[in-house]
């Protein structure tokens, strides 16, 4: 092989690759250019001018309409449903597992999977117009257990954020380490809605979790963080039924918000509340004093913490066993069977499903069991 060939081979290969690369980018520019399009929301209530080519969820978010999405638009939570009135083609295989036949017939789509390629007409619940993206400041981070942090955020001045206890916000963390894009995850508010200046969350470290790792290992007091809020429909019903509440781990968050709000409104004096909190060992327990105080102060409030694997040397006098077993035994022996009951559950899908089975066994109406499942 002579010297000329030695240079010619990589040069030719380079030129061929460069030409092909240019062809790919030109095609990308032409094929993926959908021009300016209009998204008509709720029959002309709002018209958004957006650039075509992005998923509907992102196009709406760019115009400050935030459709809830616990997974941040990866098509794995099924939360970002919207009704699309225009023809955008058949449901994709990535959408169908999250939509019932009725929803598909009504043209409900997952907004993260629908690409905006032409002007669209869509319908969304009016309350989504109230969802805001807030740039908050981290005021305080407190370790409440070995793996749960209480994160207190300060809202920007003049913010009018109205939410119901039980609703949630979506943390948006910036790219860090090997994570190359902004990521959103949903966490319930643990704050009292009457505190107009702050938002509080309880965030448990999920091994390998993008947002929880960021919160636990990178987020510092004084830093800014974006939160999209308020979202969700988990809230206390305006009835006088007994509340049978069950939580595990950071599932404490919505109940902290609910109970502190009930104290403020005086509802806690009139309504019977049974709050079951499941943990593995004593090191997973928190807010015990506050809850014990509530129990002491309000005769209708009952707090039942339970440990499934108490340490042998722990001085634990409370209930032991799985929270479902404890719930079952209380429903059998202590809770008034005659009174109407409502179920409120927050925690892992497994715990929730198991609690629902128990609640149904005791004749609780399925439609009166409200839950916030960690997706």
């Amino acid at each position: 092989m002579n010297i000329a060939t030695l240079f010619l081979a990589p040069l030719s290969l380079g030129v061929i690759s460069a030409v092909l690369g240019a062809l790919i980018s030109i095609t990308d520019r032409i094929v993926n250019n959908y021009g300016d399009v209009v998204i008509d929301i709720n029959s002309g209530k709002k018209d958004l001018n957006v650039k075509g080519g992005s998923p509907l969820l992102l196009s709406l978010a760019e115009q400050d309409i935030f459709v809830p999405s616990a997974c941040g638009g990866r098509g794995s939570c099924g939360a970002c449903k919207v009704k699309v009135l225009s023809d955008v083609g058949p449901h994709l295989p990535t959408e169908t597992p999250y939509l019932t036949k009725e929803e598909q017939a009504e043209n409900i789509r997952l907004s993260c999977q629908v690409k905006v390629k032409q002007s669209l007409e869509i319908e969304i619940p009016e309350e989504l117009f109230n969802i805001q993206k807030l740039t908050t400041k981290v005021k305080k981070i407190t370790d409440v257990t070995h793996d749960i942090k209480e994160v207190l955020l300060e809202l920007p001045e003049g913010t009018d954020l109205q939410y119901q206890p039980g609703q949630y916000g979506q943390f948006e963390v910036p790219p860090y380490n090997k994570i190359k894009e902004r990521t959103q995850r949903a966490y319930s508010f643990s704050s009292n809605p009457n505190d107009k200046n702050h938002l509080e969350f309880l965030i448990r470290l999920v091994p390998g979790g993008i947002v929880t790792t960021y919160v636990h290992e990178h987020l510092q007091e004084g830093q800014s963080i974006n939160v999209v809020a308020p979202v969700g429909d988990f809230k206390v019903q305006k009835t006088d039924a007994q509340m049978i509440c069950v939580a595990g781990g950071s599932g404490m968050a919505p109940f902290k918000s609910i109970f502190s709000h009930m104290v403020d409104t005086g509802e806690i004096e009139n309504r019977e509340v049974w709050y079951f909190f499941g943990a593995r060992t004593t090191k997973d327990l928190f807010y015990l004093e506050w809850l014990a105080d509530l129990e002491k102060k309000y005769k209708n409030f009952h707090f039942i913490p339970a440990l499934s694997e108490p340490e042998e040397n722990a001085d634990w006098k409370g209930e032991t066993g799985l929270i479902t077993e404890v719930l079952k035994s209380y429903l059998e022996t202590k809770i008034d069977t005659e009174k109407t009951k409502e179920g409120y559950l927050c925690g892992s899908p497994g715990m929730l499903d198991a609690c629902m089975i128990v609640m149904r066994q005791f004749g609780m109406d399925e439609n009166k069991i409200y839950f916030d499942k960690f997706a």
Partner: protein
Amino acid sequence: MSPVISPFSLFFASILTSNILLANFLGMCSFISISKDMKSSNGLGMAVTVVLVITGMANWAVLHFILIPLGLEYLRYIVFIVVIAAVVQILEMVIDRVSPALYMSLGIFLPLITVNCAILGVALFIEIRNYSFIQSVIYSLGSGLGWWLAIMALSAIRKKVDKAPVPAGLQGPGITMITIGFMAMAFIGFSGMLQVQ
């Protein structure tokens, strides 16, 4: 010099007697995995045909206008693969634009065409057999249609076999391989009619 063979013979031979799948056994992985569903088989068959024709032409042009004049034929494997990869990428974008449903139903298999040996096989057959440009187009198109025909036929047979009382140990891949063997034998029956060299 290009071999003397009529375009008609080349076209039908590449579809039937020298079927790239059933005579050369190239492109078997996606053939077996996608043929469970007729709609996806149809989409993939179409995609393979389009990719084959485009890459057949592109690789012929690169070979004859760049590699042979520069005496760099030994680079053909890497160049052919780069061309195939680029064509598949462009095709992916176009399918996503034109038919998102087809794009989603093809899923991972569309990018996998890049490493489909049938595509590289056809480009290399074109080079080894020294086809002219027109012959390359006809051969690529015929091979693509042959691949498409074979996957549609297998998909239709599998649909029937799914309802047949197949012994437990042979269900799934086992009976599929046996079916492919029978199909290959049936296609060999055409070999006396036409041959491509």
